[in-house]
């Protein structure tokens, strides 16, 4: 096995699940999502390893995203980045987690956000990307990403407010 093959294998191990979840969110179909992610990893063969190694995560998300949009476009399911359309493409009936009531409420609230904001939240909290990396993935500026994250978290806070926050428990979550 060449070095590159080892590198790609490691990338698959690390990123296949979050990428499939991400692609699934965009395409709404598991099989399509898997195909998209397969294509994404195949592109690594064409890429310059040294060139992308230290920003592999945003690179993969970006390629994955563009590939998913390509597929959607080819299938005629969308022509624009219209937030409404992206929402409409969201998977229906994704099994929800009922382990925590709070999460469930939050999940509901999150679904009311524009698709783009949902996508950014996913990249941030599931992908663990920084503002700058998200900006790279989504073709925005980092400040724009910051603003959108702030906007969506503000909206979630406002929606959750009547049910009460859990500040004590939360404090650990974001400490870095």
């Amino acid at each position, binding site marked *: 096995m*060449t070095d590159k*093959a080892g590198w*790609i*294998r490691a990338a698959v191990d690390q990123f296949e*699940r*979050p990428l*499939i979840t991400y692609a699934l969110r965009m395409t709404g179909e*598991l099989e399509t999502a*898997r195909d998209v*992610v*397969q294509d994404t*990893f*195949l592109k690594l*063969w*064409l890429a*310059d390893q040294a*060139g*992308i190694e230290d920003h592999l995560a945003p690179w993969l998300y*970006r390629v994955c995203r*563009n590939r998913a*949009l*390509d597929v959607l*476009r080819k299938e*005629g399911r*969308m*022509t*624009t*980045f*219209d937030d*409404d*359309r992206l929402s409409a493409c969201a998977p229906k009936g*994704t099994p929800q*987690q009922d382990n*925590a009531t709070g*999460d469930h409420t939050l999940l509901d609230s999150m679904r009311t956000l524009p698709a783009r904001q949902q996508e950014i939240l*996913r990249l*941030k*909290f*599931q992908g663990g990307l920084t503002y*700058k990396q998200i*900006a*790279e993935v989504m*073709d925005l500026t*980092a*400040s724009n990403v*910051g603003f959108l*994250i*702030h906007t969506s978290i*503000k909206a979630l*806070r406002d929606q*959750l407010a009547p049910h009460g*926050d*859990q*500040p004590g428990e*939360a*404090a*650990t*979550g*974001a400490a*870095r």
Partner: protein
Amino acid sequence: MITNNDNGTPEWDVDAQLTAYALGELEGDDKIALEARLESEPALRDQLESIRGVTAQLESVFATEPTHALTSAQRDAIEQGEHAAPIIEVKPNPWRLNRWLGVGVTAAAACVTFILFMPNFLSGEREASDVAIMTDDVADSAMAPGSDRDSMVGLQMSADLESYSNIVPGAAGEGVTSDQFVGVATTDVSDSGDVDVTGVNALEIDIDGALSEQGRTSPSVFTSTPPPSPPSGRAAGQRGGGSGGSHNNFMTAYTDEASDVRGSSGLASSDMRDLSNERQKVVIDDETREKLLESQRRREAQLGAAVQKFGQETYGDVVHNPFKRPIGDDMLSTVSVDVDRASYSLGTQMIMQQNRIPPAGAVRIEEWINSFTYNDAPPAEDAETPFSCTMEVNQAPWATNHRLVRIGLKGYEVAADDRPATNLVFLIDVSGSMNQPNKLPLLQRSLKALVNELTPDDRVAMVTYAGNAGVAMESTFCTRRDQIIRSIDRLTAGGGTNGAGGIQLAYEQAQKHFIEGGINRVILATDGDFNVGISETEALEKFIAEKRESGVYLSVLGFGTGNYKDDKMERLSNVGNGNYAYINSLDEAHEVLVRRLSGTLMTIAKDVKVQIDFNPKFVQAYRQIGYENRVMANADFRNDRKDAGDIGAGHAVTFLYEVVPPGVDIGGLPEFEATDAEPSEFIAEAEAENIVDSDRMLVVRLRYKQPDGDESVERRFPLVDDGRMLDDASADFTFASAVAAFGMVLRESPYKGNSSMSLAKSLATTGADRFGQLQRDVENYLDYVNASKHAIANEIAQSLLAEDCSPAEFASVIAMTETIDFDTFTRTVDQATANEETAPLATMVRDRVELGLGELGRGLPGLDFQPIKERAAFVRLIERAESLQR
């Protein structure tokens, strides 16, 4: 929405900072300042806790989501990928891509090599001067040189191609309810420009049948995207022939339209919302319907043909200029100039990025031919005429017993410093559909590039339209360029489409700051949404034409696809004495708004008309190639009230005429095959007697007005056919014929003769072969630069994004700016400017690059790669089109 707290900082700004802080994204002084405030303000601490509560929950929500792995077959496929062909995007020359990506050059190495390569290459070019026919022209030409930043459409290697909309054919044969019919028709009446246009198209199908003699679209062109299949309604319309005025035809046409709109409903959700809102209100009585129909028929008559329609995009007719005998009125051929290049830019976009052959109606051959740089000399400085006229006649490559005449007009050049003071108003579409990477963000960069070219005497205002029209920026002198740039940066897309008054507001701005003797121009930038305040096309054209008389002209910049109204944009710019450009990349923006800016802004001759007087002694029949929608009545040549196209500073216009010499059989030509070949003996005799004995094959008559004049000036240029054969053709002649051949193939012209993609390619490269070694050097150079661009852009991206980026690294970045890919680079620099730490250096880099862009735009004396690069790109375009057709 924004309230200020005691510190004068907008409240949402603090909240955004808190969010960034909670996520570990806040750094430097901001972080310190915020921490200090947190110490002293309990309310802020609560706010922070609330934010952290949500972020923690979000993390747990995402962490507990079910996940999926790839199948083992997929994993195997990925691991085998080393040996598999690239399956992702099919490129025309995958070997090129692999070869260069495989090189893996580091930024520094690439940069050094490039510097070494460059002088070597330049001297190579000079050495070639004794063999290259064109070298004299190249050396003499003071035109702008190619910059390596110019668009190399053939080598789009980036993995992250911008997203472009695909066209989805209308849902043919779907049942259409009366409800839908009403909905669509109403929108039409209720002043929606877009639907109005498509409504016309549907009607124009009627006339299509009547035009069959002149050739029609063949669906077989559309290999990648089939056109909307005609539902039965359309067929009924065609049976109606040219009479198309009956109630029934109207109904079927609109029913057809309704199904189209419905078929693409998923694509244009905003349109659909509009429709459903309007649906309630409608009732059209017969009288209104008749009126509508009548007005549409009038307009159709002006257009002279059917219009092709793809989803929501519309393109022009597919009429082909026929062969004519030089008898009677047909002894003269009169046409207006056209210097636009939008059709080529759009076609390139479709072929290279969307992998589809452009619909025939989108290929205006004259714009393709005029997209290239030719070596015609500009007029002498003391010349009376503001443009030169160069002519050449040789064999028509697609029918070698025919002759082909090339007529090239070339306007004088104007340096930026000599340009009169300029008063610009940008009228910008900020509707929701502009919210795509290849629309508003590209528009913003394009405008910034333009503003950087303007001089302190120039001024700019900005008017936006979408939900509401508004003045985004009052007219501002370019001494305050920073302020203008900031205003451009602030533009955001969003909002509905019920705006009013955008265009009036723009013209008000233009007139308020009118510069006497200067350039006064409104520049409309849109992706096809024409809800600028006047929705009736006729009224809009009338309005623009009136304003033209007051000295304010209109130019149109088109962006994106999916909702594109190519034909309408072209017409508006024609009415407004303006240019029409399609901007698909920053490179194209640079071409139109920097390199050709003087030409884009400054008209040096207006209402330029060309009339060719053919000598029957040498011309049995002739036809003009392209310019189908620019043909004028012969009598209008001397009618100075008749508007025609304009020529801007440095603009070049090429006309091609195919001529059948006497004695050559014309029986196979579409015009003549069905008729008796023998004309009336009286006409023949009368002609023979009256032919003046002249060696001239034809005389070109040119008529134009000075930019501020009302009286036309007329000039004449005779041409004698010296019987040359293709081997002796100039590179410009051969290349223009290559573009014409390719254009005729794409347009499915019945006159294409032996034209084929391979003929076009061989002509394009035959012309190039005359450059000898030079051409091969250039090819290598282009390959090299392109590969380097990406490698270097990649390196730059990394160094800019690196947390610990040092000034030294930035210095190396600056040194490398000669060879980078602009789209990637600009994006990267934008990101870096948004980061406070890297902002000062990033701003410096950006300024340096923009300065460099400007310098390149003005040109380096004595060197011109532009024609070679454009031609190399054209060859790649043909290659890609060939691969798409297979």
